[in-house]
């Protein structure tokens, strides 16, 4: 009986792994960029399945929402903007640059060398992996022992927001920086990414509130079950992206500064709480036992908002255009 379950599990794992590799190959080497991106989204979803198999539901959620969903959307948006840019370039110089979209591959011999090097790399890495001792050292026990004083009951959330909260803080910094950096590069492209259709618009009208609800649930659930700020934030961003896709021109109506404030909110609240803890005599980011849960929730709410808006802003691909109109 056990054997049969095991065999089935093995077969499933093997199938999953082969699918992953095949999808990756199609993503990387497929001739058509659009198809590659679609395959990439599929790849992300299968990857999420793999994370489920590895008993990492939090990661699976994050991978599905961010790794597959948002990254895929970013790729699609970039591809359509690339095409638009190429049309402009071709309009200017119709003859010489007609083949810019096609990627030029290096010579066969060079490719063989790269193949050999990648294979060598894989071989070495695989040998190192296989040489690892069977018993995995880790921090499972320490996390479990301290979970009760962390303020939350989901161990991953405890690690993310308490034990290794500083990592998460810097990661919020990276997100914040990504927006600043993207805004510094260019104003957001003016044309809507795709023309809104009636079906899409009504679909979005139904879906957006549900997504908001889902985000709220994920955020709340994160304290004791899979979920948390990043997953919730990305769902929030998904709602925003859908609204943008359906042609809601949010940037025109909104003044810029609330947007800036929300973008900085997560990081700001995180730093402020850390420093306040320090000023009242604790370590940086050390939450008093009684308030740990509340403080973490406060940080998560702020972070969720910021993450959602940040990811949506990144999807827009540049700074708000208000500045250019003046």
């Amino acid at each position, binding site marked *: 009986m056990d054997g049969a379950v095991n065999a089935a599990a093995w077969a499933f*794992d093997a199938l999953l792994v082969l699918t992953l590799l095949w999808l990756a190959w199609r993503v990387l080497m497929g001739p058509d960029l659009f198809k590659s991106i679609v395959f990439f989204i599929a790849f992300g979803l299968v990857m999420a399945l793999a994370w489920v198999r590895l008993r990492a539901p939090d990661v699976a959620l994050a991978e599905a929402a961010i790794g597959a969903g948002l990254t895929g959307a970013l790729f699609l948006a970039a591809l359509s903007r*690339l095409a638009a840019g190429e049309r402009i370039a071709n309009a200017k110089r119709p003859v010489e640059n007609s083949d810019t979209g096609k990627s030029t591959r290096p010579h066969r011999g060079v490719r063989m060398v790269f193949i050999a090097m990648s294979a060598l790399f894989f071989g070495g890495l695989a040998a190192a992996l296989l040489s690892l001792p069977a018993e995995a050292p880790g921090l*499972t026990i320490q996390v479990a022992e301290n979970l009760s004083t962390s303020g939350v009951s989901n161990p991953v959330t405890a690690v993310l927001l308490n034990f290794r909260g500083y990592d998460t803080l810097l990661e919020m910094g990276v997100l914040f920086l990504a927006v600043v950096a993207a805004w510094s590069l260019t104003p957001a492209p003016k044309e809507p990414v795709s023309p809104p259709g009636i079906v899409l618009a009504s679909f979005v009208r139904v879906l957006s509130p549900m997504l908001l609800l889902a985000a709220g649930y994920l955020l709340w659930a994160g304290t004791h079950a899979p979920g948390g700020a990043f997953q919730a934030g990305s769902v929030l961003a998904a709602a925003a992206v859908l609204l943008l896709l359906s042609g809601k021109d949010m940037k025109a109506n909104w003044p810029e500064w609330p947007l800036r404030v929300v973008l900085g909110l997560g990081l700001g609240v995180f730093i402020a709480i850390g420093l306040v803890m320090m000023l009242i005599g604790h370590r940086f980011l050390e939450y008093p036992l009684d308030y740990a849960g509340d403080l973490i929730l406060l940080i998560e709410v702020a972070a969720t908002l910021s993450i959602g808006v940040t990811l949506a802003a*990144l999807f827009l691909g540049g700074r708000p255009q208000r500045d250019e109109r003046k």
Partner: protein
Amino acid sequence: MNAAMLYALTGAGLFALGLYALAVQAHLLRKIIAFNVMGSGAFLVLGALAHRAPDQVADPVPHAMVITGIVVAVSATAFALVLMLRVQSETGQPHLPEQPSD
């Protein structure tokens, strides 16, 4: 060898595949996609190895690290895409020019 190790090896394979694509693909969008595949591979190695002892409870620390890594990756990707579009609008093409030989 168990299932977790299988996933870890797959992670290494994805990383190597991405590395190859990074080397041979000239289109910047493809290079950026390759980074994402490599990143997924690295995360898979990290997550799967923590799980390689059969009957252990999953170690949450690598999971947290992977989530952090995914968010960092999406930030870097988003920025890279904007930069790619700027390169295209300045130079007219989504490739890097040949390195001036030095």
